[in-house]
């Protein structure tokens, strides 16, 4: 999924360059432009600068593989009372019935593919245009730059000035959508306080998994830079809006941990899905606390 919005610049073949080969073919310009200090090496870093982008790329790749498989699988995403966050809300007629759950047949019966594909656009769009993930995949997949002061392999660079990357500016719509999805996932979590027979007042291990996940999802969503801007960052005079100033301060603290929250929420959402998958495939039964 993530790869579809990868930058499609002329020399995209270069992107296959593993970022961990030191001095991956730098462009002839750049640090070797006329007039600059003549140094043959593309960079002189001696630390393991390639570690971070490689780890990032592998982490993201693992998620992409897992998420693609699960999203297209169109099976094993519901085990009462839990619905996989990948399939919630479920918007087509071909959804598994979930009592009280968020299956609203907006798309009707014509949709034959996995209903996950309908809704995953939103959280994926949110994360794809997220200021942290942008850094992560620009560095990890696109080596632009692979690491600080390490020459990038591209001849030309226009950043986010033109199509398609100028579309990153729509991050804010996806933030609004992300809030919507988080609300629905919160509702799912609430439904998790039922047992397999839809009786309220119960809690299982799955409920706990969902709880942790939804907290992390909310923290990630609220730590979004667009959110920080909307709650207060856009103001010129904080002193005239004391409440929004305080909110801005609180969101700012979260924003400082945006990277951490991005990763833990990515893992938690995958684990929540995996948990449902394991229940649905009968690998084990949900341990009930009460």
């Amino acid at each position, binding site marked *: 999924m993530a790869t579809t919005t990868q930058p499609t610049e002329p020399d995209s073949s270069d992107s296959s360059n593993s970022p961990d080969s030191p001095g991956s073919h730098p462009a002839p310009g750049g640090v070797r432009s006329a007039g600059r200090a003549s140094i043959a090496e593309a960079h002189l870093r001696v630390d393991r600068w390639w570690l971070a982008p490689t780890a990032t790329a592998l982490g993201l790749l693992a998620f992409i593989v897992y998420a693609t498989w699960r999203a297209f699988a169109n099976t094993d995403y519901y085990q009462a009372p839990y619905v996989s966050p990948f399939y919630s809300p479920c918007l087509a007629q071909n959804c598994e019935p979930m009592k009280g759950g968020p299956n609203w047949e907006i798309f009707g019966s014509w949709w034959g593919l996995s209903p996950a594909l309908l809704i995953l656009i939103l959280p994926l769009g949110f994360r794809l245009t997220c200021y942290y993930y942008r850094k992560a995949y620009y560095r990890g997949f696109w080596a*632009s730059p692979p690491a600080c002061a390490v020459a990038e392999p591209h001849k030309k660079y226009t950043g986010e000035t033109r199509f398609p990357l100028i579309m990153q500016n729509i991050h804010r719509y996806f933030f609004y959508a992300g809030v919507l999805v988080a609300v629905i996932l919160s509702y799912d979590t609430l439904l998790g306080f039922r047992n397999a027979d839809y009786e309220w007042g119960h809690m299982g291990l799955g409920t706990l998994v969902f709880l942790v996940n939804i907290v992390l999802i909310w923290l990630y969503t609220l730590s979004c830079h667009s959110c920080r801007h909307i709650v207060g960052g856009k103001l010129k005079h904080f002193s005239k809006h004391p409440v929004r100033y305080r909110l801005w301060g609180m969101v700012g603290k979260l924003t400082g941990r945006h990277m951490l929250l991005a990763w833990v929420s990515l893992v938690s959402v995958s684990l929540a899905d995996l948990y449902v998958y394991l229940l649905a495939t009968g690998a084990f039964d949900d341990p009930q606390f009460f």
Partner: protein
Amino acid sequence: MTTSGAANSAVSSSYDAHFRVWRGDAEGGGLDDYTVEVNEGEVVLDIIHRLQATQTPDLAVRWNCKAGKCGSCSAEINGHPRLLCMTRMSVFSREDTITVTPLRAFPVVRDLVTDVSFNYTKAREIPSFVPPADLGPGEYRMQQEDVGRSQEFRKCIECFLCQDTCHVVRDHEENKEAFAGPRYLMRIAELDMHPLDAAEEQGLDRKTSAQEEHGLGYCNITKCCTEVCPEGIKITDNALIPLKERAVDRKYDPLVWLGNKIRRRE
């Protein structure tokens, strides 16, 4: 790291270090090897000075305050853009070869000195603070919480390490014309967040012009500017991203657009 300096010094206070320093000018040059004495508590700039005093009296280096306050002694140490005066020798092991080169995003003048005029050119392109027409000297009233954001950016010592490390211009000479660089985009953010800047009243929209005239869109927020900032300014999180968000307000946000439409009708 905090205790290693003291611990090392207890063992023995002085040793010989191996340095590679780039010598040359715009015509060409290369890395020369030197063996030079290092004493306890010293920084890389001390070693460069010792080279000057004992081995290479004409080694060119820019420096001033030697306390990380003026931002003159910017160079690259083992490939990292750093201030020479704020890089302690205790972060290296005694066996390390320490490579010092000039900044690699700007034309070299000689040895470790580069031509940083790019930055001064960009500084001139950013429209200055516009004082409010109705306030005289002594009448300015601003709240601390309103000046705090811009004050962070005014901590900048203009060492130009962020400009040097930013791949937009470091790796693409041709972008220098269109792109102001992190330091000067931050300057726009500083002015846009200044509680009394009256640019808008004068018909200057800093948010839009940041994107249309100063190349904000080139920034792909990969945060190297923040990583190298010796003042610890959160350039990306606090200046560049908020500026991008402000540009979005102006140009891409449907709700803002709708809101403006309705308000205008009223």
